[in-house]
């Protein structure tokens, strides 16, 4: 009996460990919504750009490979320095997993920016941008793709420039206001 109990605990323990290992950004994002100090923003393709109606259907179809953008911010408000440290470390440790392929790291006067993606160059699942600064807090941006690849990203960026697509600044402004 004792042995089987032991075994049960052991397997529960192992299960816990393996669950922790399975922590993904998606799960982190969902979990963090229960915490008050985080700010969230979900933007769908239709919302990213202001004047989508003005471009051809074919081009609009291309834009749909930017399925949505998730933004998660944890601002430092004086009292939550320790909480910020812990949460930042959590995100960074998730990003250390091999599925997150690091593209770029940038460090400028104390602020850090990290860029990753998941999937393959021909099938990008997610582009992840993590920025943080000691006094300010951190922001995690996830671009979730649908049949997205390197070429499409380049095309969409050029398209946005050529067609003069206007970023829907209002949603960002609202978000910034909430941050204040």
């Amino acid at each position, binding site marked *: 009996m004792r042995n089987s109990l032991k075994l049960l605990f052991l397997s529960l323990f192992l299960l816990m460990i393996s669950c922790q290992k399975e922590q993904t950004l998606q799960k982190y994002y969902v979990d963090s919504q229960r915490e008050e100090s985080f700010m969230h923003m979900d933007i769908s393709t239709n919302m990213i750009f202001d004047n989508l109606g003005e471009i051809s259907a074919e081009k609009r179809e291309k834009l749909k490979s930017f399925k949505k953008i998730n933004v998660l911010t944890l601002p430092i408000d004086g009292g939550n320095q320790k909480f910020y440290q812990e949460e930042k470390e959590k995100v960074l440790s998730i990003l250390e997993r091999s599925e997150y392929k690091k593209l770029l790291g*940038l460090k400028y006067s104390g602020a850090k920016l990290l860029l990753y993606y998941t999937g393959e160059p021909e099938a990008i699942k997610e582009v992840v941008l993590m920025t943080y600064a000691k006094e300010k807090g951190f922001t995690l941006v996830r671009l979730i793709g649908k049949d997205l690849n390197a070429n499409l990203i380049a095309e969409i960026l050029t398209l946005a420039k050529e067609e003069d697509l206007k970023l829907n600044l209002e949603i960002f402004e609202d978000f910034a206001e909430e941050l204040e």
Partner: protein
Amino acid sequence: MKIYITSLLALLFSLVLNAQNLEKYEEMPEVDGVYITQNMFELLSKIDVESDDPEEQNFVELIKNLKGIKVLTTTNVEVGSQMKTDVNSYVSSENLSELMRVKKEGKFLKFYSKPGSTDQKVSQLFMFMIDEDTSEKRFVVLSIIGDIDLSEIGQMAGELKGVPGAEELKNIKDEK
């Protein structure tokens, strides 16, 4: 056998130590930095270039063969002097050979390289610069790893206006 293993360990250990020689600067608050990984170059090389321009195609070829670019800069004189010492020991421990030396307009640059797959290519291009031209003294370390054609990197440098050392890099193909 034992001696062999211990000396091997010592060698490995010193390699690790030497690698960390410069890595420690990445985490220093006084140092700014940019790191571009092979993943990025892989992605960039997948972008279709709708051009028959051989220059552009060369560029894609160059990108494809890059494994990493790292730039570290600081204006903190103390950290910078330490950097200079560490660069010197890094250069000798990594067996980098001097490619060229430039001194002009308050700038002092040294380029180093490691042999690559062919005579025209290097596997690492390394630069250390001290810039006293501006009001603040600036120290810059640049390291490019990959299979690098020096003439192509010179071409690329021509486009990189404002990047430290780019101007000097432009002429590097003549140095080998």
